[in-house]
């Protein structure tokens, strides 16, 4: 009974494309010749260098790999030299600070950064600004007044995800939210967006628990929720790993076909699970845009143009109809 609302699903997809369209990039700046003779500080032959500092290595995570690809391809297109760096782990704040310091010393003109820890990165980024280096944030909003943030509006993304539950379940259905780590801005924004969305459409939120982004923890938490509320009808998980963990618990309890599961991130495993009918939907971010918009807008700042304070890279609802693209 959960799968036969295909017409509603179609409209949800249409809405998703609508949102994505709203977030379409501003027209690309005219490509620059590789050499930048108008830059007095750099020697004539040296191209403009832009640092893209990510939270984790692209080799370890498809998300950062897409950010990296977006940044490098946009850099090539615009004729600027893009240096992409990341600490070995998302928790390694010190390594990211050191990398930024080293690149300041090497003379980058702009930094597009996804800060591992906004407060810890602030001093080094302020130092960069004092030296005339332009700073903007990608993926995660940093702690620097006036600096532009380019990334997913996670609250809107979560709303887009729970919208699928709203459209496919009767009013008053019992639903649960599996939160990420809510001391992180992403975790909080997604939990808030989901709560608001589900409350607005009249769902009965019976449990809101954190599984700390972790698949195994999500299985345990989902088991406990099922114990308490065997008649649960929908689950929104703040990332796909937790959604997939919840699916394991639902399968073991033999109720996978009775519960709609919606995740976030559109990772390949989730896309496969959607195609297999084990979960119903997920929300795709656009990491490629984060890299590309980051480089493009960094160049605009270097040229003295003004850019908006927030640039949404867009989200898209992924269901059976378009999951193939994310496998």
């Amino acid at each position, binding site marked *: 009974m959960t799968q036969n609302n295909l017409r509603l699903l179609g409209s949800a997809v249409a809405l998703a494309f609508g949102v994505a369209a709203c977030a379409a990039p501003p027209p690309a700046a005219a490509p620059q010749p590789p050499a930048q003779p108008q830059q007095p500080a750099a020697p004539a032959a040296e191209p403009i260098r832009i640092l893209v500092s990510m939270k984790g290595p692209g080799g370890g995570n498809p998300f950062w790999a897409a950010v990296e690809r977006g940044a490098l391809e946009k850099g090539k297109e615009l004729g600027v030299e893009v240096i992409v760096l990341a600490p070995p782990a998302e928790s390694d704040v010190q390594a990211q600070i050191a990398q930024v310091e080293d690149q300041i010393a090497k003379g980058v003109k702009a930094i597009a950064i996804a800060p591992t820890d906004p407060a810890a990165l602030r001093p080094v980024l302020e130092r960069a600004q004092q030296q005339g280096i332009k700073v903007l944030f990608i993926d995660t909003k940093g702690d620097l007044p006036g600096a532009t943030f380019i990334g997913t509006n996670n609250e809107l993304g979560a709303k887009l995800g729970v919208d699928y539950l709203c459209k496919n379940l009767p009013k008053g259905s019992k639903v649960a939210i599996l939160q990420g780590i*809510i001391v992180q801005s992403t975790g909080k924004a997604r939990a808030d967006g989901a709560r608001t969305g589900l409350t607005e459409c009249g769902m009965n939120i019976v449990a809101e628990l954190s599984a700390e982004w972790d698949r*195994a923890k999500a*299985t*345990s938490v989902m088991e406990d929720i099922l*114990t308490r509320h065997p008649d649960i009808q929908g689950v929104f998980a703040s990332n796909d790993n937790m959604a*997939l963990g919840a699916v394991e618990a639902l399968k*073991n309890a033999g109720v996978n076909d009775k519960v709609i599961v919606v995740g976030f991130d559109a990772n390949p495993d989730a896309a496969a699970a959607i195609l297999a009918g084990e979960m119903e939907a997920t929300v795709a971010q656009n990491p490629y845009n984060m890299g590309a918009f980051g480089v493009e807008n960094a160049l605009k700042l270097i040229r003295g143009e003004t850019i908006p304070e927030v640039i949404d890279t867009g989200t898209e609802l992924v269901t059976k109809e378009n999951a193939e693209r994310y496998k």
Partner: protein
Amino acid sequence: MALATQTPSEARARSLRVRLIPYIDRFGILLLVLLMLAIGTITQPDVFLTWRNLSNIPGQNAANAALAIGMFVVIVTAGIDLSVGSVLVLAMMTTAVLARAQALPPILLVFVPILVGIGVGLFNGLGLTVLRLPHPFIVTLGTLNIARGLANLISGGVPISGLPSEVRFLGNGVIPIGDVQIPVSLVVIAVLYVGFWVFLQYTRTGRHLYAIGGNPQAARVSGINVERTLVLAYVLCGATAGLAGLLVAGRTNSGFPNAGIGAELDAISAVIIGGASFFGGRGSVLGVLAGVLVIGLLRNILNLNDVQVFWQQVLIGLVIILAVFIDVLRRRAGSASD
């Protein structure tokens, strides 16, 4: 001896306490488990003691139970193994990568995580004894990083979903007995704990582990091969961490690179709550099991009551301190009676 100088009434009170001590010593932690069961039943009378809830407990705690028993063997020798969470993920990702590549018959894949664990454990043990690194903290801190790095390298840091049923059996299988579905992970943990209990209580090597933790110098003088026994302790700890990786892989039907982050702390907590001493030579297998259950039941009860994760952290911290404080009181009472 000291009793001789006391008044008769004091002596009687003290002797009662002295007679109670062995029981509290053995069963004190079980009281904490019973208390948890009582709180669970009172706050969720319709849910907590149902089979549906109780049958979740083994699966939710099997991995920590496996990690904790290995950690216990190491802590009994006055050591520590910080690498178990990383061993868990390395074992899990190695298995998942080999499963995806179909490099081995699925039934042999089951042994892979254990072998990976034994390998890292051997490295830890040799680092401690052959390289003579000053404290197990150092070598296992090294392997904590190495094993997680290797896990990311071999898998590209990407989760791998969909494992063969043979690999999933221990972590996710059930054995139907009449209407009741017994989780295989419960059987695994039962066999593991009985095995370790027999080993530590009744074998010569098992007693040597306690002796080394109690007083390494005395152990060496009395002819125990301290180095070899220590290596064995770290190998056992690695092997159980590998088993934990297999259990988590089975339960989640995947290998995911963020598995086991901070798992060593849960394992250490369980061992310490269960009454083992950080200074070695003391603790019991039953205590470790109780420690695992205390943490697991606490999480289960808090989840059932929709308590948010921040409070869960606070309460687990308080339980660790409370459990060890009870232990301190108990020992003070014990030493006063000598």
